[in-house]
C-alpha cells in the first residue's frame, strides 16, 4: 500500500506559468515532508522541505503548501522555466534519520 500518493503523473506547462504538484498521505505520524527534484541521469536532490507545524514555505520560485487537516501538501513552481523540466518526488518521513516514503513522481515539462 502506497503511503504517499502523488499527482499528476505528468505535467506540461508553458514558460512563465505555474506548475502545481499534489501529494496526499494517511499516516499522521509523518513529521517531515521533503520535495526532491531529479534530472535525467542524476539522483534525486532535495529541493525544499516542510514540517507539519507550518502551513507554507517559500524558497525563491518554489513554495510548499501544507494542509494538515486534509493530509495534503503541494509544490508550486512560479514562473516555470524550461530548466525546471525534471521529475519531482514528494516524500514523507516518521522520525529523525528514518526512511522516506516517496510518491510515484511527476514528470514536468516546461515548454519554451
Amino acid at each position, binding site marked *: 500500500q502506497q503511503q504517499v500518493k502523488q499527482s499528476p503523473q505528468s505535467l506540461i506547462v508553458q514558460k512563465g506559468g505555474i506548475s502545481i504538484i499534489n501529494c496526499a498521505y494517511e499516516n499522521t505520524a509523518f513529521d517531515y515532508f521533503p520535495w526532491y527534484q531529479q534530472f535525467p*541521469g542524476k*539522483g534525486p536532490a532535495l529541493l525544499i522541505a516542510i514540517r507539519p507545524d507550518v502551513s507554507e514555505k517559500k524558497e525563491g520560485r518554489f513554495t510548499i503548501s501544507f494542509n494538515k487537516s486534509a493530509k495534503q501538501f503541494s509544490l508550486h513552481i512560479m514562473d516555470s522555466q524550461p530548466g525546471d523540466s525534471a521529475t519531482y518526488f514528494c516524500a514523507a518521513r516518521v522520525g529523525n534519520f528514518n526512511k522516506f516514503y516517496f510518491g510515484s513522481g511527476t514528470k514536468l515539462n516546461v515548454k519554451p
Partner: protein
Amino acid sequence: EAGVTQFPSHSVIEKGQTVTLRCDPISGHDNLYWYRRVMGKEIKFLLHFVKESKQDESGMPNNRFLAERTGGTYSTLKVQPAELEDSGVYFCASSRTGKDTQYFGPGTRLTVL
C-alpha cells in the same frame, strides 16, 4: 565535498546471475540508505545502515538481496540469483546524523533479462 557515488551506472544481466552494486556515501555520513525505483513507480525504501549496523531492513524484498557495509564506509548490495522483477533503478543515499537531508547518488540501472 564529493557526492554519493554508485557503481556501476548500468548493469544488464541474465536471470539467475549475480550482481553486486556498490555505493560510496559522502564522507562523514553515518547513515546510508538503499532505495529502488521500479518502472516509473515510487522510490521504495530497501534498508538503512547506521555505520556498519543494519538499522532497518524492512524493505528488503526477499533473501536474494544481501546488503553489507563493512567498516561503516561503502556499502554493497548483492542480488543472487537475480529475477526479472529485480529490474529497476537502485539508489543509494546518505545523511549525517542529526540532519534531515538525505543525499542521493545517481543510481544504478539494473536490467535482468
